[in-house]
């Protein structure tokens, strides 16, 4: 198996707070890795760091053998890592179609002159962008297509916003897709359906997936491997059963008196 992402001794601190400490982590091509951990464990920070939105204070991130440190987020996306956000951040006033079209920016290249002269290349590329967008949206059944295409993202229900976020990430044609709590706020039926789709992301679309999730059913059902973080450090790694039976993990989850679910 090919090592897709290799993270070595990654650390970051905000002021005095060590959000991540000496984290080692790797993802092989074609894996689905679940990242779990109590609130504030540093999971989102971990994603922010891979996607270039936060710069690590120390450590190395290798993607396909090349370092990502110091790249701007758009360059990271360009190299093939896409992400979703925990607190859904769609372009609320753009239509559903536009949301997915705009995220193909880094895979397309027509410039202003093409648009002004309405060249053949421009028309073809626009058609291609639109076709891709509809294909990606079609992944979620009929929910996001049809009359929906021209509606602003702000009218979508919460679950559909989450789906659109995933579609938007898929449209960047990544190799690795980072999902931050994809089923948060969904009911059991919806999350079961999305769980199925996550496996399909790998099987049908060929993406490698890293997923942060609090819902243990989802994590168990799709993950090949699970990593548990706490206080910015890796507590345990391995199959779901190994990790979930690890005493340190149990303590991290149960040992906290007042825990709120995100």
């Amino acid at each position, binding site marked *: 198996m090919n090592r897709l992402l290799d993270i070595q001794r990654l650390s970051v601190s905000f002021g005095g707070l060590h959000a991540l400490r000496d984290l080692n982590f790797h993802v092989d091509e074609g894996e689905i890795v679940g990242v779990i951990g109590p609130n504030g464990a540093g999971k989102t920070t971990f994603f922010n760091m891979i996607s270039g*939105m936060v710069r690590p204070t120390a450590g190395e991130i290798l993607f396909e053998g090349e370092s990502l440190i110091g790249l701007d987020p758009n360059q990271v996306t360009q190299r093939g890592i896409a992400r979703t956000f925990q607190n859904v951040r769609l372009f609320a006033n753009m239509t559903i179609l536009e949301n997915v079209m705009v995220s193909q920016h880094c895979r397309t290249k*027509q410039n202003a002159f093409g648009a002004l002269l309405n060249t053949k290349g421009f028309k073809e590329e*626009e058609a291609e962008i639109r076709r891709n967008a509809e294909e990606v949206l079609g992944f979620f059944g009929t929910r996001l297509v049809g009359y929906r295409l021209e509606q602003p993202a702000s009218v979508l229900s919460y679950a559909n916003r989450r789906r659109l976020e995933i579609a938007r990430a898929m449209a960047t044609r990544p190799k690795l897709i980072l999902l931050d709590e994809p089923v948060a706020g969904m009911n059991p039926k919806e999350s079961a359906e999305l769980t199925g789709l996550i496996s399909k992301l790998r099987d049908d679309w060929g993406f490698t997936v890293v997923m942060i999730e609090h819902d243990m059913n989802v994590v168990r059902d799709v993950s090949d491997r699970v990593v548990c973080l706490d206080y910015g450090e890796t507590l345990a790694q391995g199959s779901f059963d190994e990790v979930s039976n690890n005493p340190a993990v149990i303590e991290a989850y149960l040992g906290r008196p007042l825990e709120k679910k995100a």
Partner: protein
Amino acid sequence: MTTTAELVTKGAFDLDWRKVARLGGLTALGLVFIALAGMPVGLDSRILIEKYLSLGYVSLLWLSLIMGWLMGKETLLEGMTATRKSSRDAVGGACVGALGGLGLAILGLLINTFDLRDPLVNWSPQTLDILTFGGGVGVVVVWIPICAALGAVGGALHLAPPKVAKATIAAILTVLMTAIFATFIVDVVSPLDFLYSKNRELKLGWALVLAAVAVGFVFSGGGQQLARVKADYHNTTGPAKTRQTAALIVVSAAVLIIIPQVAGKITQELMANIGIFLLLALGLNIVVGMAGILDLGYVAFFAVGGYTTAVLTSPNRGEDWPGWFPTLPWWGALMVTVVVASLVGLFIGAPVIRMRGDYLAIVTLGFGEIIRILFLSDWLNGYFNGAQGITNVPPADFGVFEVKGTDPRSVFYLVLVFAALSIYVSWRLEHSRLGRAWMAVREDESVAEAMGINTVNVKLAAFVVGAILASFSGAIFAAKVGSIFPTSFLILVSIIILVIVIVGGMGSILGVIAGSVVLVGILGGPKQPGLLQEFSQYKLLIYGALLVWMMLQRPEGLVPNVRRTRELHQDEFLQDAWLKGQVDTGEEEPAVEGGEVR
């Protein structure tokens, strides 16, 4: 939106007295301010209706009418109780108006008694004269019934049948417009001369006829027909729509080409000015409206365009230019100007592009000032002649036809070509890869970045496109005026263009066109007179007030971009959509309320 608000009936005097006091107080304050700002005196010489009404008096009358109308206005919300429209509204309006009139009356008495002329320039006998209609001091009291009557009319608009209300408004507007735009109307259609007296004052008889025509138009259902045509146009889709749009464009173009042929100099000059500011506004619209970058130093690009053209074409360009420096014809200079403007765009854009949006605004404003100060300075005097400016910029010569300031028609045609070009550019870019990226950056910059958009490049592109459009305007301006001075490029220009874009509708091309026509056409540019020449003293005040009012009441502008409306009225929009059942509630499964739904 249909409301099921419950209706309550209230007695005529069962008013919300606090609201009366508030609106009345505002009316009084407003009227006193208008009087002390000198509008009645300054505008009195402009007679609208022969012997009966001057613009000065109109400045004192309109407020009561509007405040009276506001008094009766209620926002209806689902499930709330509303009051049945009744004579109560008229009474409320009258009370508000009366309070306003009282304010004016007291002002008159005070002017008569005390002398505060020292700080307040309009605390003058002339003002008193207007307030008393030339009679004794006691006459000021008539303002109370006058304003009360106007307020009552304003309030009564709520209870009149919609047609009557519409007819009243149409009549008032028709008469006022015909009177105010007298010069323009006669300039374009000289046979209409007969409506006016020698001094372009509307004759009373014709004023009544016009009012009657307006009323007739409304009652014959003319307004509805117009609305129907508009709705039809909106509802057509596909090739039919393309055909209709094309026809519309051809017709507008034809009208625009013909008007300057039949109209006089005033109109031609006006249209040329509108065009120059439209070009600027279209450029700023790309920067502010589409990419969401608030550039307050936009005038810098206008200045760069003007100066580059002047330096490259004028023999008086300053002595320190090296001997090999070329003198080009206008169109040759334009090519260079575009290049220089893009470079300046990059130069100013690069350092500011990563700043927080509001810092960027102030820093660009700083750049705008720096560039003007440099053009003005002794240091570069040898190049730009400092305050004397560069004179003798030759006309733009196209062989068959020469564009020069003394022939505003030629300027207009040139501007028309460039405006068409800029509109085409804006329209094509809006619906392209770059335009979508601009939108994404405007919505949420860091997410746009995470979705693979190089936000720096995309924003710089907006800067450069904006700079190029502004430099067109500057180049034409140089050829039109024939000379270029630093004082033509004050920050004021940036702000006025911003007002045009905002009043028209940020991000809306049609809105920007409408904004330029209405604002530059009526009020005028920073130095250029509009149709209301008498307003030149007051126009900056009005620009400021408009900016505040638009931001508070209609941030999306007069002709909004659909998208922008949603953004600025998010909550209302969602509520509307919900009422119309448009919001998706998750279809088969009920949506689970996540904690983060905003």
